[in-house]
């Protein structure tokens, strides 16, 4: 395992009875990456995270974290991981006391680290509040604080945006980004909200029915997320030559059937149309389209995503 690989799963499988929750999942997360683990509800994201964190034993396959074969079952590895799961708090204790417990158990000697972490997640003014009185959003911030207090190298976040308001989501997104960019923290985060993952992840893995369908990096994602002019023509060969030679447009491709996808000079749609018609090519449709990750995701999952909250 190369030094820059922080997390690796190899043929990870988990079955409950006859139901396969996760199937032969192999992925690799490098140092400093923000890996967005995207999938519908029930896709197997939480099961995977539980296996990564050592909370659930894989049926087969393995997890290697920070070079250790036993992953989070190894105590020295757990010291270097920060985890946000759906786990609760001690309701009778204040926010500060809840965090104090984690500070002590993670072996952080500096008492001031508790206040620093509360400030980091925007909870400084809530420190004296009893945990059971917190709103859903504040609970999620406290979960994040618990994950961050010991300054881990790897953050494993299960649906970090859950319960947060738009401002909270933005703050968490900025925090995740700054941790990765400024402190080199590696982040593995699951989400069913496409927009959220799209904005923060440097790489995305799409999980569906327990299988990793695809991994996309940021550059590819940007390419996939661009707008283009879709033109349905009677003759694609003639149209292509006309675009290049007469209009100087080179950024296009020929899609299925009689479709051309033009990726540059979208504001010249009228000119393109007129030129094609003048050249005797009939144009039956001309429309500006935007293929987002959402479209791609829906395509990949065979349309199942359209019924769930994946658009964000």
């Amino acid at each position, binding site marked *: 395992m190369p030094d820059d690989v922080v997390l690796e799963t190899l043929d990870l499988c988990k079955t*409950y009875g006859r139901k396969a929750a996760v199937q032969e999942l192999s992925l690799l997360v490098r140092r400093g990456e923000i890996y967005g683990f995207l999938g519908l509800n029930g896709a197997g994201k939480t099961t995977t995270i539980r296996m990564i964190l050592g909370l659930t034993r894989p049926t087969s396959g393995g997890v290697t974290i920070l070079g250790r074969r036993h992953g989070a079952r190894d105590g020295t590895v757990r010291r270097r991981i920060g985890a946000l799961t759906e786990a609760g708090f001690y309701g009778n204790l204040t926010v500060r006391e809840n965090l104090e417990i984690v500070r002590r158990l*993670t072996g952080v000697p500096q008492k001031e680290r508790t206040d620093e972490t509360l400030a980091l997640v925007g909870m400084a003014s809530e420190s004296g509040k*009893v945990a059971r009185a917190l709103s859903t959003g504040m609970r999620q911030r406290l979960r994040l604080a618990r994950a961050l207090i010991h300054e881990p190298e790897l953050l494993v976040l299960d649906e970090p945006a859950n319960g947060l308001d738009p401002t909270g989501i933005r703050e968490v997104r900025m925090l995740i980004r700054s941790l990765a960019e400024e402190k080199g923290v590696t982040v593995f985060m699951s989400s069913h909200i496409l927009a959220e993952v799209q904005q923060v992840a440097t790489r995305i893995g799409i999980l569906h029915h327990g299988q990793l369908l695809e991994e996309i990096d940021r550059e590819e994602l940007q390419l996939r997320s661009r707008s283009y002019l879709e033109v349905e023509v009677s003759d694609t060969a003639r149209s292509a030559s006309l675009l290049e030679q007469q209009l100087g447009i080179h950024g296009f491709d020929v899609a299925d059937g009689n479709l051309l996808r033009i990726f540059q000079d979208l504001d010249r749609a009228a000119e393109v149309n007129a030129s094609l018609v003048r050249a005797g090519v009939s144009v039956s449709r001309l429309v500006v389209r935007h293929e987002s990750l959402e479209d791609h995701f829906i395509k990949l999952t065979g349309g199942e995503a359209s019924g769930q909250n994946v658009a964000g």
Partner: protein
Amino acid sequence: MARTLRAELIKLRRTPLVWVALVGISLPPLLNALLVADRLSKGDNLGWETALGQSVLLSNLFLAIGLYGMVAVYLFASEHTDRAWEHLMVLPVGRGYVLVAKLLILLILTAVTAAVGFGVSLLLGLLQPRLPQLPAAEAWRYARTALTTALLTSSLMPVVIWITMAVRNYIVPIGTLIGLTVVNVFLVIFNADEVIYYPWSLPSLLAVYYKGTTPTPVSWVLAAAVTVIGLVLMRVHVYRADQGGAA
């Protein structure tokens, strides 16, 4: 281990548990003091055996299993009702350490509670003007009995703790504690032959005031077996972090 223990102590803040235990343990001494005062007023010749010994027996017979059992159940069930256990399991702390820390907290709370209960008995006894002077050696003997029987009761709790961890609620373990108490009261009051085989009766049999059956080596072996089996079950349960959640 020290940091795990400190973390466990923080968890006790603002819980009603300590107050419930202290108030609870004061009830048998209060009841006993009323009985003693009544009998003294009728001219009965009573000694400290009744004022202190009977109080210790009443606590052991009717309250100890329920009270110390509830402390044990709370320490473990609260992790599940608050759903905090899962996060505890992803922290760099040994699961065994967490168990040991919780058991130590149970023993510490038990000792403090027993000491307070004995203190209340002693204080109420000293307030009775017709009781003779209390020799220090006798006071120490009762104090030792109160403490050892309380600690013995708590050390019999791992099986109940295991049930708590398995069912993750309060209802089943509380029902179990009620059942254990009822059987204990029945066996001890009727001085049944089987009392020596019932581990949860051992503390009552050891109470100085009790004049019935004396525990045999078999009683001790059975009590030790119940404790060991409970501890093993707890350990196995905590390490079997799979199939729908961390223990």
